[in-house]
């Protein structure tokens, strides 16, 4: 009996550890590379752990490149995108969750359909429009283009969060004579807070990570974090220690943010798909 239990445990832990190693390995390896001195990288022998760990790569990254400036640029753009998306999407989501109006089912599935369209379809027309409006190189171009994917996604996710809020509170608010803005601000918003934070964070992360639009719509003075990270490859050719430090620095903020909201975010995402 005991042996059988041990066998069961082995059957669980063995494949689990293999899968976790597969998922974790690139992160661990990148981190280890980032704290190695350059000469430890370019040898043919395997040394997993750094012999003389150093933070020099990080100081080079932050003081000798435009990495930090682009980090600030990314924070600014991601935060703006996130705020605009949350205000606009939560209003629309409330309409979808609580009202019946003609064309609602079509609009809802249409929104999901829009989310499926490839980014490269928007790229050229947006470039032509931004060029006409003299917006190329301005943060506004990125904020606007990020709305192409953040708004459909946020509406969809927030609708499922609002549906999860009991309607009785709003009904009693209505009886007490609250107007729609009052209902939204005093009753719905506080209850929706966890959902708003989760969705907003996800939008922030996606805007922070975005690369393809950013290549097209920024100039060398105001590039975002992914652009300056990718350009490290060309500027510091073969300096994988510095590039790895950049990868770690670009990732840490979003991973921490994600860990904080992941429970709410996953709950919202899976609620939408599991139930139908």
């Amino acid at each position, binding site marked *: 009996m005991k042996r059988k239990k041990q066998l069961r445990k082995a059957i*669980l*832990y063995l494949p689990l550890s293999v*899968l976790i190693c597969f*998922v974790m390995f*690139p992160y661990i*390896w*990148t981190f280890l*590379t980032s704290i190695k001195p350059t000469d430890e990288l*370019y040898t*043919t*022998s*395997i040394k997993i752990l750094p012999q003389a760990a150093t933070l020099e790569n990080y100081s080079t990254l932050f003081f000798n490149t435009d990495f930090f400036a682009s980090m600030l640029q990314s924070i600014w753009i991601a935060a703006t995108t996130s705020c605009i998306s949350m205000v*606009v999407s939560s209003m*629309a989501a*409330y*309409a979808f969750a609580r*009202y019946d*109006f003609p064309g609602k089912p079509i609009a809802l599935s249409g929104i999901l359909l829009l989310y*499926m*369209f*490839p*980014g*490269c*379809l*928007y*790229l*050229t*027309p*947006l*470039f*032509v429009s931004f060029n006409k409006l003299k917006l190329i190189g301005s943060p506004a171009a990125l904020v*606007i283009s990020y*709305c*192409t994917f953040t708004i*459909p996604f946020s*509406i969809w996710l927030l609708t499922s969060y609002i549906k999860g809020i009991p309607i009785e509170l709003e009904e009693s608010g209505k009886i007490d004579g609250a107007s*729609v803005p009052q209902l939204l601000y005093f009753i719905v918003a506080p209850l929706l807070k966890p959902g708003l934070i989760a969705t907003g964070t996800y939008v922030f*992360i996606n805007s*922070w*990570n975005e*690369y*393809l639009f950013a*290549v097209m719509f920024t100039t060398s003075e105001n590039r975002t974090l*992914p652009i300056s*990270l*990718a350009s490290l490859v060309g500027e510091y050719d073969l300096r*994988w220690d510095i*590039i*790895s430090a950049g*990868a770690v620095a*670009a990732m840490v903020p*979003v*991973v921490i943010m*994600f*860990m904080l909201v992941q429970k709410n975010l*996953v709950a919202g995402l*899976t609620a939408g*798909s*599991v139930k*139908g």
Partner: protein
Amino acid sequence: MRKKSDRYVPLILLAPALLLVVGVIIYPICHAISLSFQYYKLTDFANRRFVGLQNYVAIWQNEAFIASLGNTVKWVVITVSFQLLLGLGLAMLLNTPFHGRGIVRSITLMPWVTPGVVIALMWVWIYNGNFGILNKCLISLGLLDQGIPWLGSDKTALYSQIVTMVWQGLPFFAIMILAALQVIPSDLYEAAEISGAGSWQKFIYITLPQIMPTIVTTCMLRIIWVFNNVEVLYLMTGGGPGHSSMTVSLIAYIRAQKSLDFGQGSTIAIYGTLFMIAFMAIYLKFTRGGDYE
């Protein structure tokens, strides 16, 4: 009075979203369609003109586009299949209680939010022909005599990037399937045990049918997502060597971003969108019966 004003409430609530969607999504899509009928190169801007279906026809003579069709099928089918298989496995494992399950679950979700640029760079370094850890390990294990340039050879470039993409999408699959596993009523299993069903039978006759809707939905989302993904391929090999890892979405992006050929770039993007719409139409036709039951 009150009722009448209530009718306008949803419209007012929807107005900002509607305005944005029309401005940044619908209008650009229409504009892309119009660009696809034009000779429109930023490098030859003065000569831009309407050319009818010329872009749509000419693209079939393009070697890179032809090569990208087969690659796209491989890229999507192999990636999503392995994501599903490994994701299903991971979800089953995470569904059994053990110490530290919460932490393991959070950790395995990390690739999902890792920036595409970071993913590409991490794996380019792992695959590095001379100093990459993968080659070093394989050589020291005696499996290889000398390092393979994983991304530099047309035989391995696409498949190496498929591994990266499987790695990226596995957690999403796992978490979706896990959520579905957790809502299966446990009395179904109890009933099966009473009738003497083994683990395998329980999996085939209870688990699988219960999680099937989730698997189908997640597969569709992932297929579209992997099809549209450009970032990883663009940064890891840019479609090379030759056209060996070129996909439809990637070539549309490169045409627009690098060659500044907005006409053909839009044409390929529209072809890509049409392929996906056709795929979704077929998908919906086959699954419609099951969804409303």
